[in-house]
């Protein structure tokens, strides 16, 4: 069984279009990472069968789920897709046990065997004491676990998790993340995790697809995304600066301003990245080897406790990350004239 393979175009009534090519092998977790409005929920809906695609093909293992050209569409009830929805959508008029046994009772099992199997699932996730509680009485973390049990109980072939932790507060999130990682490991089929939180994606996924405006803008491992982001959004996630320019023998023209890169192999249209921590900030013109040195102004200062992010102004807007101590030592404030320096080796180049 080859997991999930989908290449599709789907559009919402509003006209918003999603065009995606995605492959998730069995036993791997793919994270779909993107900002709100990127089209991630649309993808969940077409995979679950709650919406039909316009063009293309969705195949799960040997079964084709949706193929407009063949006039083939498998109803959601007949797809073996387990979904953990963004607001969990636990049936409020049922208990936790009732929710978890729902999928089992709906298809094959008798009421009693469904309840018994559901109970086992709750035990596996360590929440069997919640069995009799009404779904509306569960806390955020409890509801998330019950939703996961409910999705897993009918033994689906594909697991979709739509922003499973966005409704939780920061502390619960950390605890639940570990449990989720364990639960994901035990699920042998392909898994798709939808999220806007890069940390979640970086920690839980084997491969990350970055989605923006209905399209996959980048695909790769966490490392690749972090070190070689291809869009400003991806760069933002990774904490890097991203510029478009034209490279010629290591000299990159960024629309008037020049950056020297050590990489001579890439020419023509390029994406240049400079990590925030690779930018040094000085009060006076620095001596030494860095080839990229210029004077600029501090436009914004953002304090994150253990680190500070500075935004510099013309000739090149960048975000630099330095320690609070450094800020103090350099006596930096908005408007201060500073010198920045970047080593040529720190300028990453990719074909753009």
């Amino acid at each position, binding site marked *: 069984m080859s997991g999930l393979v989908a290449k599709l175009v789907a559009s919402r009534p509003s006209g918003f279009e999603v065009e995606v090519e995605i492959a998730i092998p069995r036993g791997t977790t793919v994270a779909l990472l993107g900002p709100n409005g990127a089209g991630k929920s649309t993808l969940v*809906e077409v995979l*679950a*069968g*709650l919406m039909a695609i316009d063009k293309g093909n969705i195949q799960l293992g040997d079964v084709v789920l949706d193929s407009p050209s063949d006039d083939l569409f498998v*109803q*959601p*009830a*007949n*797809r*073996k*897709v*387990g*979904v953990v*929805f963004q*607001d969990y*959508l636990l*049936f*409020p*008029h049922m208990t936790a046990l009732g929710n978890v046994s*729902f*999928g089992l009772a*709906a*298809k094959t099992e008798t009421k009693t065997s469904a309840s018994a199997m559901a109970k086992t699932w709750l035990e596996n996730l360590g929440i069997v004491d919640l069995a009799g509680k009404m779904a509306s009485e569960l806390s955020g973390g409890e509801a998330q676990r019950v939703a996961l049990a*409910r*999705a897993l109980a*009918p033994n689906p072939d594909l697991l979709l998790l739509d922003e499973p932790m966005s409704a939780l507060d920061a502390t619960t999130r950390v605890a639940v993340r570990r449990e989720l990682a364990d639960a994901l490991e035990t699920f042998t089929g392909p898994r798709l995790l939808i999220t806007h939180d890069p940390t979640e994606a970086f920690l839980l996924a084997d491969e990350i697809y970055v989605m923006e405006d209905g399209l996959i803008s980048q695909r790769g491992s966490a490392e690749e995304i972090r070190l070689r982001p291809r869009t400003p959004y991806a760069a933002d996630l990774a904490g890097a600066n991203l510029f478009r320019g034209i490279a010629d023998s290591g000299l990159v023209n960024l629309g008037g301003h020049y950056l020297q890169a050590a990489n001579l192999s890439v020419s023509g249209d390029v994406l240049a990245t400079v990590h925030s921590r690779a930018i040094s900030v000085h009060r006076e013109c620095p001596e030494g080897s860095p080839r990229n040195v210029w004077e600029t102004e501090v436009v914004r200062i953002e304090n994150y406790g253990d680190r500070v992010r500075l935004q510099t102004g013309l000739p090149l807007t960048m975000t630099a990350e330095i320690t609070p101590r450094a800020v103090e030592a350099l006596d930096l404030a908005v408007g201060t004239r500073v010198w920045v320096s970047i080593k040529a080796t720190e300028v990453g180049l990719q074909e753009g």
Partner: protein
Amino acid sequence: MTESRRRLRQRPPIGVLLLAMIAVVFFLLPLIGLLARTPWSDLTSLLGSEVVVDALALSLVASIAAVLLSAVLGVPLAWLLARVQFVGRSFVRGLVLLPLVLPPIVGGAALLFALGRRGVIGEPLYEATGLVLPFSIWGVIIAVTFVSMPFLVITVEAALRNVDTRYEGAAASLGASRWTVFRRVTLPMIGPSLLAGFVLTWARAIGEFGATVAFAGNLQGTTQTLPLAVFVSLESDRDTAIAISLVLVAVSLTVLIGLRDRWLTR
């Protein structure tokens, strides 16, 4: 918090209270008028009479049948109106509301012209099956269902519109067929509204007079429901009329109060 502050938080505004009290009195006055004229000494014998027993039985049978019929036909209609975009939907909704604005007697007469022995549909039906609807309990059931089903349709349609359909999507993703989704997710989620619809429908059905008398006629033991019995006895025997009215009020209040408490306030 000081004592006066706590009280301020809990008491409703005096204007609201006053107007609401006037409304309560408005509803209470006819009941008081009825009780004032009740022949208390003769009441037990009056209540035991055949006329009253027959009328009570007919009223209960017809009104409950109306609720069941309205549920079977009205819920699917409500679902269609709430969930499906079809040509002429506004017209259908207007049609459903028609019995609410039509004087019941007009509705009854119209039913007679349509479903009577010489009626547009009734005549062919009679020729083919020998079935006659007026002057029978079926006529009563049809007449009271006609005026009361709109309540069920309107209530259920509104409830279905307010249901978060994402829950139905979740149920589908778990493998539930459309019927299972409706039965185990949609229906329970509109439960209170559904029950309120049933109560309204029943209340309207049991009080119906004009359509019943115009379509089904008036015959003790066959078509004479409580309201008809009241109307006819008003002509000659006021005491009987009042006794029967009391039965109607008592039955209605019992059901309405009993149901409200148990189901509509969770």
